[in-house]
């Protein structure tokens, strides 16, 4: 009886928040699934002429060569970014972790700035710096006697530009996580290794790095998920462009050079001629794949622990 009373009190406290979450997050989540099984877009929604089409959107998705190109590119984008985030993050954390560094709090403060500045602003500043005529990067290159780079109009350089921006944004987070990890490695282990005659390099390679990487697994998984769906950097700097021609299964096709899956979802949903249903179908496939990956990862971690 007392228990039921406790439940009721608890429910009274959480009811408003749960109602809001149900209406703003959970209901849309399921409603979005149902959209993926229709042919809904802005126009047939307003005239209420949209209809159920079954798996048509998903079939179309599997047969759309552009989706495969974008999937490949999204994976490439994720691997490059997460690799650079994690390796640079660990490298800077190790440099900063040395006990004899002077001005340590000050250097740390500077190095975490890209994480602290609102991403929207830093992305727009980078966007401005990539400006081919007046941007700081080309001015810097010309100052040291090099040729200016067509940052945003050349397909390869545009991809380099968005990766550069995203690496600048993402390293501090991994550095903070790595610093936390380094703090948690017991000094005794390293001392024991020293006594056994391990060189500094051996100690880093065989003791510190493996222990550190293990503590960083949750953050790396989060990093993969965030990068896979990183929308703002690409949308704001290149908007997926410039247009380029890629050979897909022997057929040349015009595809945007820096588009990834998530920017494709937005473009499909909110630019003319829009298709909410097809965009939803792509979006939910991404979500399910990421969910499966992280469940798999949880299972593997549990397995390793046991």
């Amino acid at each position, binding site marked *: 009886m007392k228990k039921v009373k406790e439940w009721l009190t608890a429910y009274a406290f959480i009811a408003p928040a749960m109602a809001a979450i149900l209406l703003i997050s959970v209901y849309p989540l399921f409603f979005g699934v149902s959209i993926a099984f229709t042919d809904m877009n802005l126009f047939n*929604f307003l005239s209420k002429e949209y209809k159920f089409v079954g798996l048509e959107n998903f079939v179309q998705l599997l047969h759309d060569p552009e989706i495969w190109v974008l999937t490949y590119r999204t994976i490439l984008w994720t691997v490059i970014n997460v690799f650079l985030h994690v390796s640079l993050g660990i490298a800077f954390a190790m440099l900063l972790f040395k006990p004899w560094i002077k001005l340590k709090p000050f250097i740390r403060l500077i190095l975490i700035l890209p994480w602290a500045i609102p991403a929207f602003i830093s992305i727009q500043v980078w966007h401005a*710096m990539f400006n081919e005529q007046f941007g700081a990067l080309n001015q810097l290159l010309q100052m040291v006697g090099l040729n200016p780079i067509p940052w945003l109009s050349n397909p390869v350089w545009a991809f380099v530009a968005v990766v550069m921006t995203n690496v600048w944004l993402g390293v501090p987070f991994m550095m903070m996580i790595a610093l936390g990890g380094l703090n948690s490695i017991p000094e005794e282990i390293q001392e024991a290794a020293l006594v056994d005659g391990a060189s500094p390099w051996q100690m880093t390679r065989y003791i510190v790095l493996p222990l550190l990487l293990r503590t960083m697994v949750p953050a790396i998984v989060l990093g993969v998920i965030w990068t896979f769906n990183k929308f703002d950097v690409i949308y704001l700097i290149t908007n997926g462009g410039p247009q380029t021609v890629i050979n897909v299964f022997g057929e040349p096709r015009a595809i945007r050079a820096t588009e990834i899956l998530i920017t494709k979802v937005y473009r499909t949903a909110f630019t003319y001629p829009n298709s909410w249903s097809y965009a939803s179908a792509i979006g939910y496939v991404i979500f399910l794949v990421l969910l499966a990956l992280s469940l798999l990862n949880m299972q593997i971690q549990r397995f390793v622990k046991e």
Partner: protein
Amino acid sequence: MALKQKPSWFEVFYTYFFLIIGCVVVLFPIYWIFTTSLRPFDILATPTLELWPKGATFSNYINIFKDPYFYSAFTNSVKISLLATALGVLLATAAAYAFSRFEFPGKKPFYYYYIVSQMFPSVVGLIPLFVIFLRVGLLSEKAFLGIPLVHWGLIIAYGAGGLAFSVWNMKGFFDAIPKELDEAAMIDGASSWTIFWKVTLPLAKPGIAITALFIFMGAWLEFVMAMTFMSNPKLYTLPLWINLSITNPFGIPWAKFAAASLIIAVPVTVLFLFLQRFLLSGLLRGAIK
């Protein structure tokens, strides 16, 4: 001990060398945007990099508020962010208290929901939300209580959209307040509501302030939803104003853009530097548990 032995000169050299390179790479964009904001001329962009602009002036910071579109974007953003924060804090505080203090069926599923919600791409969730808001009229420009309905839509979405994170984050603060205090009050005959209002809440003030700031910062520069919901520049929020100026086909108003960026970013950055450890602990509690 052995670990604290003196480093070789080579180690000292490369350590500081790479740390300094890192600092330069981090600071360069900030330095560039700052000097740009001091340029006395708005439209005339210099094709060379100036280490310090000629005739540097702070006038851009004042003149920017004379731009009617910037001014309205600024007030719109302040209004929307504050109301979203109030809504989010109200809902999150009560729920976090229950999650910290009571045992009840449904606690675990909420935790799983929190994890899954972190994985759900927000751009994908935007589609059904757009359709729902369109249907119930939350995308219209008609005013309700003096605020356009589309702004109410953003307020609701910002305030309630990140609730799972806010609740989870705030639960940590409530967990840190000893339960013995509640029990003592209960023995004295206080009701759950009195305990919440008179005992726990006053002690949780720092946690509430931090949660409020996180919600505020999330709303302050959100652009995807704002850009999708609004087409009238008079209703724009700050990020949309910035976007408009940086993609201006008739020439980017460099100094204005730079000054506005700094006005918008500096206070939030300073706040964030104070708050980052709470964010990390909240995130990792979610990831590790």
